[in-house]
């Protein structure tokens, strides 16, 4: 099966310019060499803490940001080489849902206008049918068709997120990048939206890239999970494997740090010390080494490549052998 999306060594750097001549003084290495594949019909989760580059990666995948370097193939075709009309028509297949349903809808447009916009931009249906299509979309996402003349402020957060989802669905996309789509919602509404996204995936055979900082949501919703730290993927695996058998010390700490319902009051013990360093000047070698409890000689020298740690399981850590297929800590790798 060919991958829907094949990403090779993708980089997105943001220059920091200062002074009269706006010279580039430094760079934010938001995404710094990411390679991954997304298979048709699957849900790939991207997790990590703020500043790890998960949102930048999501936006670069749909070319809301132009990458600094790297390659994106969409169904085997060089997506980054597309220009003009070809790019525009390709964009129909790639849609995005954002975190903040208050910021992502134009307050001066009625819901009907918001939902007619994609049809207008892509000239996807005759003008007189647009309203009808908008009503149908509202029903698809579980809202009443007669909401079509209302303005975004008349809706609750959950309803607005449904409208954003309806907009993303308008042109029958193949791939939807959902950036923290439930993070701003209350728990009871969060469950409704996650169920809606699942239903739509089944009905329209969608592929999702699901970005979230919430590991419980990712474990529930995704098929595979990629963990990011300072612009790079440090571990990627099918979710059962990742949550049962996390290899990277960062992934282990991240999972351990999730507060568990019903665990009972306990003595808090932070899973990690320190904070995520700046992506402007990331630490040398493995970016995680200053916080890593398993750090040893050499971690500050070379960045470890992603190596095979099991079926579909890859990890970037010195603890694991460099040779493909080697599982477990490398011999003599630890002090």
């Amino acid at each position, binding site marked *: 099966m060919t991958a829907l999306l094949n990403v090779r060594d993708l980089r997105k750097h943001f220059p920091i310019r200062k002074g009269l001549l706006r010279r580039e003084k430094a760079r934010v290495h938001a995404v710094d060499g990411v390679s991954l594949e997304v298979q048709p019909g699957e849900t790939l989760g991207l997790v990590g*803490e*703020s500043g790890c580059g998960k949102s930048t990666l999501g936006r670069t995948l749909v070319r809301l940001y132009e990458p600094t370097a790297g390659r994106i193939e969409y169904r085997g075709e060089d997506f980054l080489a597309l220009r003009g009309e070809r790019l525009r028509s390709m964009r129909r297949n790639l849609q995005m849902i954002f975190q903040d349903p208050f910021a992502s809808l134009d307050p001066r447009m009625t819901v009907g206008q918001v939902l007619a916009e994609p049809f207008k931009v892509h000239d996807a249906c005759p003008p007189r049918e647009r309203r009808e299509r908008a009503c149908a979309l509202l029903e698809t996402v579980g809202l009443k068709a007669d909401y079509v003349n209302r303005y975004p402020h008349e809706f*609750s*957060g*959950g*309803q607005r997120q449904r409208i954003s989802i309806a907009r993303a669905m308008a042109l029958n996309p193949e791939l939807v990048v959902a950036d923290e789509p439930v993070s701003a919602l*209350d*728990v*009871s*509404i*969060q*469950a*409704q939206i*996650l*169920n809606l996204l*699942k239903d739509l995936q089944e009905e329209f055979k969608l592929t999702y890239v699901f970005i979230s*900082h919430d*590991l*419980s*949501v990712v*474990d*529930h*919703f995704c098929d595979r999970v990629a963990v990011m730290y300072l612009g790079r993927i440090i571990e990627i695996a099918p979710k059962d494997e990742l*949550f*049962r058998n996390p290899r990277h010390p960062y992934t282990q*700490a*991240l*999972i351990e*740090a*999730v*507060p*568990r*319902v*019903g*665990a*009972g*009051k*306990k*003595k*808090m*013990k*932070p*899973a*990690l*010390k320190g*904070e*995520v360093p700046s992506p402007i000047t990331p630490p040398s070698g493995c970016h995680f080494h200053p916080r890593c409890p398993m750090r040893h000689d050499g971690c500050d020298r070379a960045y470890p490549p992603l190596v095979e740690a099991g079926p579909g399981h890859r990890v970037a850590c010195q603890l694991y052998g460099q040779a493909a297929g080697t599982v477990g800590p490398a011999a003599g790798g630890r002090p």
Partner: protein
Amino acid sequence: MTPEIVVSVRNLQTTFHTRAGPVRAVDGISYDIGKGRTLGIVGESGCGKSVTSYSLMRLIEPPGEVTAGQVLLHGEDLLSLPEERMEDYRGSRLAMIFQEPMTALNPVLTVGYQMDEQIMRHMGLTRRQSRERALEMLELVGIPSPRERYDSYPHQLSGGMRQRAMIAMALSCEPEFLIADEPTTALDVTIQGQILELIQQLQERLHMSVQFITHDLGVISEVSDEVLVMYAGTACEKAPTDLLMDAPLHPYTVALMESIPRIGRRIPRLPAIAGTVPSLSELPAGCPFQNRCPRVVERCHAERPALKAVAPGHELACFNPVDDR
């Protein structure tokens, strides 16, 4: 052994006078918090958990108003104190930390200056002495190089460090009662763990009573001795944490716990709670949860259930509780 009661909230009612008429954001809440204990208050947006906290601190401003009830701190009613006395108490006997540290920190003053102001005001120290105290607190909350940070402006600190600075400021006068309103919601999960540990260590050291507000059931489960579940301005259920997590009785508590994803739980769909929280200005007569409740009975439409003890320490406001488990 029951610890000495530090805070006792009696039938608190806070009303916002809006153009659409009076809205009861908090409607008859009562609870006690013992010395050194943590009460978690959990609920969704608009349930009144933050308004409850602001009411306790007497920080409700018009059009809002505390319209009934008592807030007793060691038996003294804070709601009937003159404002000057309340100012003496705020920051010294009771303190509050917020989700967004910039709510509490002034962006144009250095961290040290703000801490000094409070310490001098409440502890009657000189600037030199209060600087020592502020540095001690910054060190205690784990801020690296406190001397430099003392002269930093809030925006020069990271989110986690700002949260620590706010905690240092709130606890600099060793309050006996701390209200923590979603203190870790804006933080990354590994930083959240660090801040929760910090609050817990300081609580033990100062024997503080803590009211911990959050929408996160995982956090509440790990930090609280007792949990109060709120819905639409009212209390649904209150119980010791283990009991509430193991055997919740209120249909809302049960539904809330069912609806959250948990690591390792394999279900294709989450049992979501249908519908949305009703607007506080259009609350139906009777139980506020009736329109979303799977166990609704005739009586729920007519009468509002009161919070009543059903077992030692377990209080419930429901006519048809979940008992089949």
